[in-house]
């Protein structure tokens, strides 16, 4: 009963403890020994004097100053270091002890939680049919209706563990119901309103990972947060869950110069989330036009190749004439990802005007499109390749393009010089190629 009260009213308990501490300190330092009877009074016949709290501090400072007054400054400096070290020790020990204790408690709770609910939760989360809240409640057989904050964090951990373990057989609806029954959604709402930034980020990652829906409107403040990671994370979540105008969050605050590969991966993941749920993606073209940062422009162009519509891919072809090399390369790659046949001829026309590195992108795009019309072009690319690397790429594309391409490859190999044959052998070697294909 008493323990339960403390757990539920943690803040009030801390407040009471703090109040008692203050009363004790005031009594100790101001009142005790500060009566008229004993101020500055040494008891007759003894060397004993009753100090009050502040006097004790003064005494220790006096002691510290005078004890070493005769010593050189070197000793005094050393003593200062020793004092600092002792304070450091105390801080380090205390914080470590607190950390170890917290970790121990968390671990114990998690083990208990896992022991009690893992099997039940697994059954709920992997059930094939949609379960009602009542059924979920029965199946989970919870011992209590609410938990401590730390326990909710561990519930999320347990959910994630099951999610990772049975990724392909997870029922999102049942997971949501289970989270609702446990009270995790309520906890998440509170934490996102009041928690620390890092906790909020982790929580958003958790709910995204588990596809849990938070109450609408909860993120309105977070999507404009000062912290960039939180802002991005909440915007990703916002557009995943908000059907009303979800793409408004993709503005210049989102696609800024700090949009790193990590953010690209998260964006791609979000896009995949949409596709899996048959939701419409935003049009990438206005986003590409709006952003002025070449790396983001090129990223969005690539994304068109993965998720875009045919009209958008057609539009991307305009970037073949872009002055920015990153955008041009991305446009060629986009054609490859989308396997957009009409772009073939135009890419071939641009081939000669491009730098070697970009030429290689065109060759790979042609291989991916694989329309069966580019063998002659690939053969020409092999013959005119300016470096062994480009030649290797061109030969690889030719060999893997079609039967006709393969024939051309072997014809060229017969005519090749000894030095060139080395490259042919590298490209046609099944072990090297198998490894390459397996990894790519």
């Amino acid at each position, binding site marked *: 009963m008493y323990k339960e009260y403390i757990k539920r009213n943690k803040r009030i308990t801390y407040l009471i403890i703090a109040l008692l501490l203050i009363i004790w300190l005031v009594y100790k330092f101001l009142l005790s020994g500060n009566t008229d009877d004993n101020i500055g009074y040494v008891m007759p016949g003894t060397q004993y004097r009753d100090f009050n709290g502040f006097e004790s501090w003064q005494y220790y400072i006096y002691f510290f100053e005078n004890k070493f007054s005769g010593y050189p400054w070197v000793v005094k400096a050393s003593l200062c270091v020793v004092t600092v070290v002792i304070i*450091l020790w105390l801080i*380090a020990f205390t914080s*470590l002890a607190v950390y170890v204790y917290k970790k121990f408690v968390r671990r114990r709770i998690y083990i208990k939680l896992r022991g009690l609910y893992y099997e039940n939760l697994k059954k709920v989360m992997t059930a094939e049919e949609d379960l009602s809240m009542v059924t979920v409640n029965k199946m989970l057989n919870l011992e209590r209706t609410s938990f401590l904050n730390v326990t909710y964090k561990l519930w999320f951990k347990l959910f994630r563990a099951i999610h990772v373990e049975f990724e392909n057989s997870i029922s999102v609806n049942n997971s949501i119901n289970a989270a609702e029954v446990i009270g995790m959604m309520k906890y998440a709402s509170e934490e996102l309103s009041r928690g620390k930034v890092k906790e909020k*980020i982790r929580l958003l990652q958790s709910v995204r990972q588990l596809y849990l829906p938070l109450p609408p409107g909860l993120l309105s403040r977070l999507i404009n947060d000062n912290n960039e990671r939180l802002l991005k994370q909440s915007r990703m979540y916002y557009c995943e869950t908000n059907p009303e105008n979800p793409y408004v969050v993709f503005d210049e605050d989102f696609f800024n110069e700090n949009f*790193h590969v*990590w953010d690209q991966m998260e964006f*791609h993941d979000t896009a995949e989330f949409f596709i899996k749920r048959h939701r419409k993606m935003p049009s990438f073209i206005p986003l590409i036009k709006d952003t002025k940062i070449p790396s983001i422009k090129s990223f969005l162009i690539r994304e068109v190749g993965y998720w875009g519509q045919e009209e958008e891919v057609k539009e991307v072809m305009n970037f073949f004439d872009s002055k920015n090399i990153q955008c041009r390369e991305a446009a060629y790659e986009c054609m490859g990802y989308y396997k957009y046949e009409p772009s073939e001829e135009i890419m071939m026309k641009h081939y000669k005007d491009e730098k070697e590195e970009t030429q290689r992108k065109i060759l790979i795009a042609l291989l991916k499109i694989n329309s069966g019309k580019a063998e002659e072009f690939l053969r020409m690319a092999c013959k005119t390749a300016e470096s062994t690397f480009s030649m290797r790429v061109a030969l690889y594309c030719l060999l893997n393009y079609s039967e006709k391409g393969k024939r051309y490859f072997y014809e060229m190999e017969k005519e090749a010089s000894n030095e060139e044959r080395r490259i042919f052998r590298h490209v046609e070697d099944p072990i090297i190629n198998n490894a390459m294909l397996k*990894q790519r």
Partner: protein
Amino acid sequence: MKEFLFTFFGNVVFFYSMGLISSYIIMIILAGRSVFKSRKSQLRSYDRELISKSPYTPGVSIIAGAYNEEKTIVDNVKSLLGQEYPLFEVVIVNDGSKDSTLEKMIEHFHLIEVPFDYVQKIYTRPFKRVLKSTDNEYSQLLVVDKENGGTKADAINAGINAASFPYFINTDVDCILAQDAIYQCIAPILKNRDVIAVSGAMTMSNGCNVVDGSLKNHRAPISPIPLFQVLEYMRSFFVGKMAWSVINGMPNVSGGYGMFNREVIISAGGYRGDSFAEDMEMLLDAERYCCIFNRPYKVVQIPVTCCWTEAPSNLRILYRQRVRWGRGLIQTFVRHGHMVLNPKYCIMGMITLPYILFFELLAPLIEFSGFCVFVYLAFTGGINWSVAYIIFTMLYTFGLTLSMVVMSYDYVAGSTFDKKSNYFRVFIAAIFEPLFYHPFITFFSLIGYMKYLFNTQSSWGKMTRKGFAEIEGNKIPIKDENAVTKKN
């Protein structure tokens, strides 16, 4: 005059120590912030899920040189192949081994010669051939066979030439990597495009059980010399490098384990084949390249133990290693002296290198001269013992505090060991380290300096390897009577 000189020297040493202590306190604070911050920053399962399924995940080549490693090569290569990362290859460079290192690999991994188009982007000793496995299970393995280059740098350069991914990990073939080592190191690169190198923490594998190339338990070594090195590495990674990383002034990414941007390293000229501290020099070259061409760069230390390496287990081998390190340090300053206090080289030139010059390069000299003066004064009765005790207490308690702090950082960052009781062993090492280990290290470094200055013949120290013996399914390290020597 004599008295004045001694007083002057005493004051210099004292100020030097106080400077060192102050710098350590700053480092402790910086590193602490970073350790606690990184611990809470991200969910691991979320990171992994994202990295494992994204098409934007970059490939990573793990490069390791092997010279006369027949005892452990198969287990070690298996360990490297056991990474969980979705896109990686393992490039083993057989640096002209004279024993059966290559034969063992050929036999076990079913390797055959393939017509690989090897392009020498960085100069190395002649390349002979490339071998790949016919077994699909080992399709990620690529073995480069080349003539002996006499240094690890040459082998790694050959590996960089043969590697096919944009990032590579430089490691030693006897190192055992954590299964998620690549995941840990790629995350900072993905989150910031300016990151050119990531260093993971290392510790000692002595005392751990290894089964099929992976560690089955993580324990602190029992023998004293490796145990002292555990403490030394903890200090270096969890305070020194973590703090330098915060201000982007990392002086070194260990040659035992580090991830690099391949393009930057090739542009900077790769590893120097004639260097005794090739890892430090390579990083300085890379940073210099970035500064000259105004390429933003960051070098990051992560507070996660990614690599377990075999520590020198006796004084003889430790001597060789530290003499080489000492030589390497002084050689680095001779070659990169122009970077010191040169604002063109940013934090590296203005803070890191002057600090290392003053507090690392000169430290053995000052410590040794201080010790000599102390002995002289002790015999001539010139010491005020009560003062000496206090100063000694100060230095000793500070050293012990530093050790305690690094142990707590290690624990907070995720703990290198399986059981907390291992920290007790490290604590015992911390008690004795200033008295029984540090003096040797100082002395060995001084010998390294002298060998460099007097141009004693350059040769890489030989590293005695222990093999792994199989006992009831477990493999435990055993002492090798006919120790194989390694030139790298």
